[in-house]
């Protein structure tokens, strides 16, 4: 890697670290997402610097105009990939950017390398200051990202009053901090409603959530998972957290939620998933029940002491008679999800793939996938 190309070097090293992190737990999709977000930030910062430099050289007057008049000028300027890239980096993510990103994404890699080279030649004097600036910007942006992630609960919770009305009956399963804050936010706004919490065996996080909710004065009913179907007909809305949101709008969620979602669909109860944008994963799920799942210890379900003779090779044929299956996650297909509430607002499942383009660079998706599959 040429020393001149700061951004590429940075991307490379971030990737290397990212791969290790992902390899540590490939099922924890949020790790990959954040690595991608960081990579995206690096690329964006690099681009914006480049653009700024280019603008300083020859396009300084034009670049502002282009933003306003890009529809007319676009064909003429399409050759100027850098300018296009600059638009995308300088504007906050929006649907318009996304649409324009499509042609850009092909050009970006090219841009970064060629731009880097040209920079190296033309601006060697500038180099040290630029690299410092890049580093500074990246750090700042990453801090922002950290900020975003840590405040996403609040951003989501702010929307609670828009979705919860008086005397609502809400069902949730297991425990999720996002859900807890969402409900509490509505409670603080003087909405009075009732919550059914399914306990979420075998981890029984529902007990924890129920405890938190009653501590904050919410009317809470703790039910068994098996009673979900019985109770869902009296529920107005199901609100759950997610482990990850896939690009197709499917959800990797704590085990049991597919059942809840099916029951909700049967009774036409809205199934709402709360997810911070860092949970949005650019992958499309393939056989997610198996490939994106994690099997936990059977001891959560069965007492080893009682069943030791069968868990083992007790039958004498060499094959154990007893298997214990204890998956951690469920895959909820997009058709069962009514709404996603993220820190950027509510979205339909069918819209999730659009958001991906906001947060990730296209070339990172491929790379990540290779690393995950490699591991």
């Amino acid at each position, binding site marked *: 890697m040429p020393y001149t190309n700061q951004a590429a070097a940075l991307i490379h090293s971030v990737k290397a670290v990212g791969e290790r992190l992902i390899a540590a737990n490939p099922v924890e999709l949020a790790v990959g997402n954040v690595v991608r977000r960081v990579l995206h930030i690096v690329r964006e910062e690099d681009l914006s610097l480049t653009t700024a430099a280019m603008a300083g050289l020859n396009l300084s007057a034009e670049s502002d105009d282009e933003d306003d008049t890009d529809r007319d000028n676009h064909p003429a300027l399409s050759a100027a990939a850098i300018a296009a890239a600059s638009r995308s980096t300088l504007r906050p993510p929006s649907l318009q950017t996304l649409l324009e990103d499509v042609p850009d994404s092909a050009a970006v890699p090219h841009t970064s390398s060629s731009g880097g080279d040209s920079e190296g030649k033309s601006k060697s004097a500038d180099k040290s200051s630029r690299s410092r600036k890049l580093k500074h910007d990246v750090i700042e942006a990453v801090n922002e990202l950290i900020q975003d992630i840590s405040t996403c609960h609040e951003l989501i919770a702010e929307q609670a009053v828009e979705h919860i009305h008086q005397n609502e009956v809400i069902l949730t399963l297991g425990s999720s901090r996002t859900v807890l804050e969402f409900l509490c936010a509505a409670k603080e706004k003087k909405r009075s409603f009732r919550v059914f919490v399914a306990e979420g065996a075998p981890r029984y996080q529902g007990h924890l959530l129920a405890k938190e909710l009653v501590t904050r004065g919410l*009317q809470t009913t703790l*039910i068994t998972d098996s009673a979900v179907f019985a*109770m869902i007909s009296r529920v107005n809305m199901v609100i759950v957290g997610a482990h990850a949101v896939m690009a197709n709008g499917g959800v990797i969620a704590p085990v049991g939620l597919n059942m809840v979602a099916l029951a909700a669909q049967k009774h036409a109860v809205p199934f709402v998933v709360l997810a911070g944008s860092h949970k949005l994963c650019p992958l499309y799920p393939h056989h997610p029940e198996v490939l994106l799942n994690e099997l936990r210890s059977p001891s959560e*379900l069965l007492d080893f002491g009682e069943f030791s003779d069968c868990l083992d090779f007790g039958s004498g044929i060499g094959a154990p008679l007893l298997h214990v299956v204890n*998956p951690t996650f469920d895959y909820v297909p997009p058709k069962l999800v009514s709404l996603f509430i993220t820190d950027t607002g509510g979205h339909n499942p069918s819209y999730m793939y659009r958001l991906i383009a906001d947060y990730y660079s296209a070339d990172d998706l491929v790379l990540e996938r290779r690393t995950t599959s490699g591991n």
Partner: protein
Amino acid sequence: MNPNPNIDFSHLCFLLFLQKSTKFFERQLSMDARRMSRAVPRVRQVGFFTPNTPAQQPQPQSAAPSSESPPLSDSPASNSLSPVMIPPPRHLSDNLGGRTAAVPVPGREISGELPTVGSYNPSESVLWLDSPPRSRIGDEELSEGAESSLGWYRRSDSAKFASSLPSGGFNLSTAKHPESVAAVEAKNPLPEQSEVQKEQASSSKPLKAKTTKAERRALQESQRAAKAASRAEANKSGTPGGAPSSKPMKQPPQKKDGPPVASSIAASERIGVDRSVEKERKKDLPPPRKQFDDESRGGRAKRRSVLNQPEARNRVELFRHLPPHKNGTQLPSLESKFFELHEKHPAVYKVGLQYLAGDLSGGNARCIAMLQAFQEAIRDYSTPPEKTLTRDLTSKIGGFVSFLIECRPLSMSMGNAIRFLKSRIARLPLTLSESEAKTTLCSDIDRFINEKIVLADKVILRHAATKIRDGDVLLTYGSSCVVEMILLYAHELGKQFRVVVVDSHPMLEGQKLLRRLVVKGLSCTYTQLNAISYVMHKVTRVFLGASSIFSNGTVYSTVGTASVAMVAHAFRVPVLVCCEAYKFHERVQLDSICFNELGDPDAISKVPGRVDVNYLDNLTDKQKENLELLNLKYDATPSDYISVIVTDYGMIPPTSVPVIVREYRKEYLLI
């Protein structure tokens, strides 16, 4: 003794008659009255008694007075009687004496009515005569019958009788079905001899003191001679033999068509009486369930109850209409009350305690335990003086049942079994001695257990096993004994399959099932309900048990069953529900909330074997105020999720449940 033998005799006959067939009589009376006022008994005519046409004309007039003679026909009793179809054959004959029907009531004190009553008899006697094959039956039996009847009558015929009559009518009303008649007749296999017997019976009554057979006979003989002239004689209806009166002559033709009365009845049902069937159905609507949020009734129940009602804390708003769970902590207090509750039979008491402690679970096990306890109670039962077995035993059983309900709400299947038992009791022929009645009932119970549960399960096994192929992966939820038997049976047949046992907190019954299956060498997969979507991919069949199936096809079963069926449906896996037909119920239900059973709420916060789950251990009072724990026992699976119901009548779609319920009910009351 009344100086006027004739009156006395007729009086006695009347009493006898009342005793023996109060139920029918009243029913008929009321029916007759009603029918007559409506004016056309044409249904009757259709099939059976053509000859009587002339009689019908008189009826209307007679009817009018009878209906006016209010006491009986208008009495609530008669109204409350289920409008059962009356076996038409009798009626016709009654019609002749139709007016009689109403009359007897007022006539309790006076023998004047007797003639009318008597008119009723002939038909019955005819019926009796119809079943000649039994003529062989020994004298002893006859005499025994006579004796028993003697006993009965003696008890009741005294002063009591007046009062007993109406109440008897009420109680007996439970036995609404014509079959009872058949049963009665069947049990009294008296052909020609029947006459003799009747006479014995009737004569015996007057002689309250013991008389020897010979004496009785002599008496009868003499009386008979006297009576022969008077129609009153016929009144002995109570028992078999009516004197051959003019009517019997007419009837012989009928007899031919239905030697066993039952068949004739069946025929009658088929042919006519749609209306009455209709009505019966209406009346048979299950009574509304007790709602526990109803203050007035709840209060009463509380006062009566043996167990302390747990306080309302932690009760879920939505389920206030259901009785709160009574947990085993009340066991000691209940145990200590044993001697206060002397009217509870120890066997029943024991079963009640087992329910309460949760030692007995599973629909079939509970039902069998209950029936066997009743059996024991019946064996030890003796009719208190001045009461009749039928009524007293029915109320006894009622007391047992309410005690059991207090320990734990009954399942539908147990309700059905109790209904069966009560109908058997109500249908006991009055001629039976106490010991005979008791053995009859015990054997009825045995037969019910055997036919409706044990054999039914065997049939289900056969059916279900045909649906298991090599290489299948079968999923089952919770612990259903039928499903367990099916799995073991299929395993014995040498089929190669794998079983997925799905379980759920807090019952964790699946672990015990898993234990038993693994010991038998079946290869199993065990998982929690939440992981159902994960395992369902590989499953090829889902076998579920049921606590009850409602006539809209809803399967009422262990909580969680609905979820399993739903997920299976979503994955296009066939769902087979295995359930004995005696668990079918004519109720309908759409959700799991209107009717359900609440389990111990505290069971939720504890997870056996998981000390790390203790989040709810130390809650402050304020926290507890907001927290409700809901432990539902059952849920209702919509019929769309059920592919097939495997029952002892074969494999049926859920839409056929009402058909089975209807057909089956008839049959099981007939057993």
